């Protein structure tokens, strides 16, 4: 389960981004962040050592339909 709390979000806002958050705003953001954090944690274990984001562009071309080749 995600350990993200409103206090954590407020601290990041103030230290990393130099602005302050109201409690209500921090609560809403926490509710939005928690499921994403959980999903991210779950899928991160399936990432292989030598993958990188640009592999996607190569795959897009490689897996593409033949109609646009020429």
């Amino acid at each position, binding site marked *: 389960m995600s350990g993200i709390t409103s206090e954590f979000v407020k601290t990041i806002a103030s230290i990393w981004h130099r602005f302050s958050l109201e409690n209500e705003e921090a609560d*809403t953001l926490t509710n939005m962040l928690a*499921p994403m954090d959980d999903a991210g944690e779950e899928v991160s274990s399936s*990432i292989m050592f030598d993958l990188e984001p640009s592999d996607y562009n190569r795959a897009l071309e490689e897996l593409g339909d033949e109609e646009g080749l020429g």
Partner: protein
Amino acid sequence: MMDYLNLDICKTSDLVLSGELSATELTKASIDRAEALQQKLNSFISLEKDEALEAAEKIDKRLRKGEGVGSLAGIPLAHKDMFYRLGKITTCGSKIRSKFKGDRTSTVLSRLEKAGALYLGGLNMSEFAVGPIGNNVHYGDCFNPWNQEHTPGGSSSGSGVAVASRTVYGALGSDTGGSIRIPSAMCGVVGIKPTQTRVSRFGLMPLSFSFDCSGPLTRTVRDAARILHVIAGHDPEDSTSSRRKVPDYEAECDKKVAFMRLGIPSNYFYDDLETDVDRLLKDTRKIFKGLKVEIVSVDVPSHDHINLIWAAALAAEASTIHRKWLRDRPDDYGPMVKRRIEFGLYQPATRYLEALTLREKYLRAYCDTVFSKCDALLTPTMPVVAPRYKDLDVGGGESMPELVLMLSRNTRPISYLGLPALSVPCGFGAKGLPAAFQLIGRPFSEGKLFRLGNAYQEVTDWHNTIPKIVE
């Protein structure tokens, strides 16, 4: 007199080229329609009457002289107000950019102009292209032409409305998680989100470098094919744009669909459909069967994680782009938009990079398991028809994330994967609001999607139904 604005691009273009109809006459009619409906639908942010008429006169002169003109000569179009034009204001639907003048002209607009298309103005949109509803706190909400109590969908709200209301023949929109397909579905028009790198992003307001796409909304599949053929292709100004040859998409429309294989997902896409949408999708399946298209059942990979990591990556990129304004001008954002952008500020960089790194793996899995069994997937574009404004939380409150997820549940995973998807209207629900199906293909298979979509429109008439507000 015949109402030429009710025709499609291909038929109208023939009339202009033959001299039966002048571009000037057509543009005047389009401007009159835009002015007559603006108060009711609010689809335009800016209307550039004089410039459009001047450009139309130039096209007419060239035609009279027998000079060559492009495939969109004299056709009035208008676009989501986020495609830059050198020296002209592009608001991006925002207060922050209300006076921003483009420092370049977007490649897609240059290509449309070269093809002879006319630019009528900037269309309403969700602020900074964030949000699937079509509301805008700065320029006023945009309204569904089929019923003004209902939303038109977003973020390319004005594009859907202006095309559906027969004000313009086509409009560009942008799609990062469904923003072309959702308003297309809610307004009863055709919309295509092309393969991720098919169309240049140069001069397009960024929301997310990884997922932004632009594409046309039109009344017919064939019209969308014509516009996409004009705007697609490599652009030296956008290093990510594909170098693949652009097929003749209109010619693809004429190819046979018999024995093509259409996959019906056995999981995810058909969950929790409204009764009307469910019924209309069943009817659609029958129509494709009648066209001798083979229908196969396909298990699609789980989308639960895809949806969440797409949102994480999008928010990371959007919040990077907006960080300075979020800090210095937070009150200049609408509440829903601010909330959806700012949560990217609270994620570690590793989460963002993991989301992007996994994209290749998911794309390969999808192509292996889905497109080895069928030419395209058939899904509902949305699980519901357009909701009423008054039933929605557009203020960025507690129920907002769930609402966004529900409206875009069938479109956003496809944006993460970067696949092409065509939305085609397929009938009306009990309240007279349109529903649509979505055809999803492997990368760069737009031609096949056009072929299937056009075959469907040749034996149905939904795309010729006109909202009462126009009559």
